[in-house]
């Protein structure tokens, strides 16, 4: 296996609030390998965004505080870099795509000039003419029609889908090694989402960047990710190859999440929700954060008293689960994967 391009080790982030300390991210570790798409999935408050944003110096400190951990980008720790150093990496070798392009684009600059600026900040020697040429090429890569004319338009003249394309063009402007996409299609309609999925594929082909795809949408993960990190209550609860996670999950939360989905392709009499409410990060349950909602724990004491470590399974230990009884789950669990589950994974 090649060296990871990004390696997060033992990351713990807290926020001080009036109500107490919010344990947003606790002891999170994962690697991102060159060229892969790593899906980070979880519900609101699971820590999926904070874990990534804190690496890039994008959380407010205070109230935020990084208690421990490392985020090694090509061997250098992003968490100990100066603001100047991290600015050089951010938007250059590590770029971002956000959920809402309207709030992340500058309304008083033309689309083209903004992307050109992003290039010139990281490559000060670039002439305006060269930058313009490159921007037009990028707009074509992401499928903005009549790129030449669109260059001189302002964000408000772009539709939601077109703005997201422009954001993606900006994010790949400096040939990033790592592309972080935080809910990139959540604000978009399904037919536009389908377009943006294609654009993300095109962008990855153009740059060979490794993508971290942060989303709550399991459909998007199934469509795009190579490997998946499942987060719950600020911790990683399961990690593995996308086929393994969907076809043979080994954490009761992942199993519950998949089973709770309404299905597009078949009629169901009742949905199967996960009972209870997500944990409060101010006051997480002791032991496994999922135990109050877990139908599998069956009141066993260890679930309430001991935080289950993330343990490896199967060949090479590439599949990790943080459940005390993951082996039992493996024996009992029948695949929850929707349609085509009988097909061999390609």
């Amino acid at each position: 296996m090649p060296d990871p391009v990004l390696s997060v080790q033992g990351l713990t982030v807290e926020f001080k609030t009036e109500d107490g300390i919010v344990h947003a991210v606790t002891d999170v570790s994962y690697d991102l390998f060159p060229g892969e798409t790593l899906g980070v999935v979880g519900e609101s408050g699971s820590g999926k965004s904070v874990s990534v944003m804190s690496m890039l110096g994008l959380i407010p400190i205070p109230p935020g505080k990084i208690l421990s951990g490392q985020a090694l980008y090509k061997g250098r720790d992003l968490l100990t870099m100066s603001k100047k150093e991290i600015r050089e990496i951010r938007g250059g070798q590590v770029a971002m795509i956000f959920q809402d392009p309207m709030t992340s684009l500058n309304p008083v600059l033309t689309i083209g000039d903004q992307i050109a600026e992003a290039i010139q900040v990281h490559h000060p020697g670039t002439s305006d003419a060269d930058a313009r040429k490159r921007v037009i090429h990028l707009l074509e890569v992401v499928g903005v029609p009549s790129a030449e004319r669109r260059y001189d338009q302002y964000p408000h003249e772009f539709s939601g889908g077109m703005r997201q394309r422009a954001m993606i063009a900006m994010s790949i402007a400096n040939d990033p090694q790592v592309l972080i996409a935080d809910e990139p299609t959540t604000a978009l309609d399904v037919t536009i989402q389908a377009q943006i999925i294609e654009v993300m594929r095109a962008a990855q082909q153009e740059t060979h960047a490794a993508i971290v795809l942060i989303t709550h949408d399991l459909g998007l993960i199934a469509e795009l990710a190579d490997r998946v990190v499942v987060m719950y209550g600020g911790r990683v609860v399961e990690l593995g190859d996308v086929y393994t996670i969907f076809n043979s999950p080994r954490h009761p939360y992942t199993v519950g999440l998949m089973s709770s989905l309404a299905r597009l392709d078949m009629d169901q009499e009742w949905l199967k929700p996960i009972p209870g409410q997500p944990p409060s990060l101010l006051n997480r349950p002791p032991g496994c954060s999922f135990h109050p909602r877990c139908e599998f724990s069956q009141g066993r004491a260890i679930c309430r008293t001991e935080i289950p470590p993330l343990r490896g399974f199967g060949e090479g230990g590439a599949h990790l689960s943080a459940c005390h009884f993951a082996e039992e789950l493996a024996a009992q669990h029948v695949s929850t994967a929707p349609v085509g589950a009988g097909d061999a994974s390609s």
Partner: protein
Amino acid sequence: MSQAETMLAATEASSLRDPSEILRVEGLVKHFPIKAGIFKRTVGQVQAVDGVDLAIRQGETLGVVGESGCGKTTLGRTIIKLLEPTAGRIIFEGQDITRFKRRQMRSVRRDVQIIFQDPYASLNPRMTVREIVAEPLRIHGLYRGGEGKRRVEELLRTVGLSPEHANRFPHEFSGGQRQRIGVARALALNPKMLVLDEPVSALDVSIQAQVVNLLVQLQNEFGLTYLFIAHDLSVVRHISDRVAVMYLGKLVETGNRRELYETPMHPYTQALLSAVPIESPNMRGKRKRIVLTGDVPSPANPPSGCRFRTRCWKAQDICAVEDPELKPRGGGSHPVACHFAEVMKPLDVVGQAAAS
């Protein structure tokens, strides 16, 4: 006779006096004027809803799906007259309520309640849960002392909350619990029908399923009729008996859920279904995927003829000239508004990737 009426006469004559029908909408139009200049002259119309016909039977769920800006929310609000219709008729339990004034609407409002998308914005943060749930009872003069208190507690139990929650404020609850409070409030007056506008889209997946199950259970228990408006095609399939697909102010296809999901005939319905990512990596590249080009046109200036034609891969000259009627076509049993309607099965496995 308007086009809509002709169509109704032609296609639904048999159900015109269906006694089980609770709501009927004929040729419903809602335009919003666009004002400009210092004199606020009307310079155009946003044609949010433009000639919708539908009927809902007692106890059934009609799902309305469509993307943002298609007019589904405006449709829901116009049907219960939170917005005044521009044209058309709304008939509730055999009574034409289109021109009802506020006072006359009071009795209708008891029977038809609405639940909104955002449980964070639709509950008054300064009121306790008890006050929120009791408010409709008080407005209609039905809240009386101990009995009213018992009724509120009963309602909370009905939606899966405990009576002890009555003295708390909305901010003390999670999104799913807040939506339950909204449902309890909507049920307070024993309505016959609920208009549910994206009731679960603000909730996390695992919580969505709880609220959807609650809605189904309440429907079974109280014989409620639902108009369920949403953009999530999976949730709509699960909860609906019949489904209507909306595009740019018009219904383009209606049918029972089997017909609509298994044998859709309108290109837009087909594109919509094919675009939803399925939660299984095993399905990668094994479904036909139709990626539509372009964006939805502005409802202030919709295309002539068929409104979908500007994004449609089947469009021909006739589509720009003639607005296709919503009627059964091409040997199909359910109404579809397309000159070139034919069955395609976007959910079927088609082996290796087809056209994209």
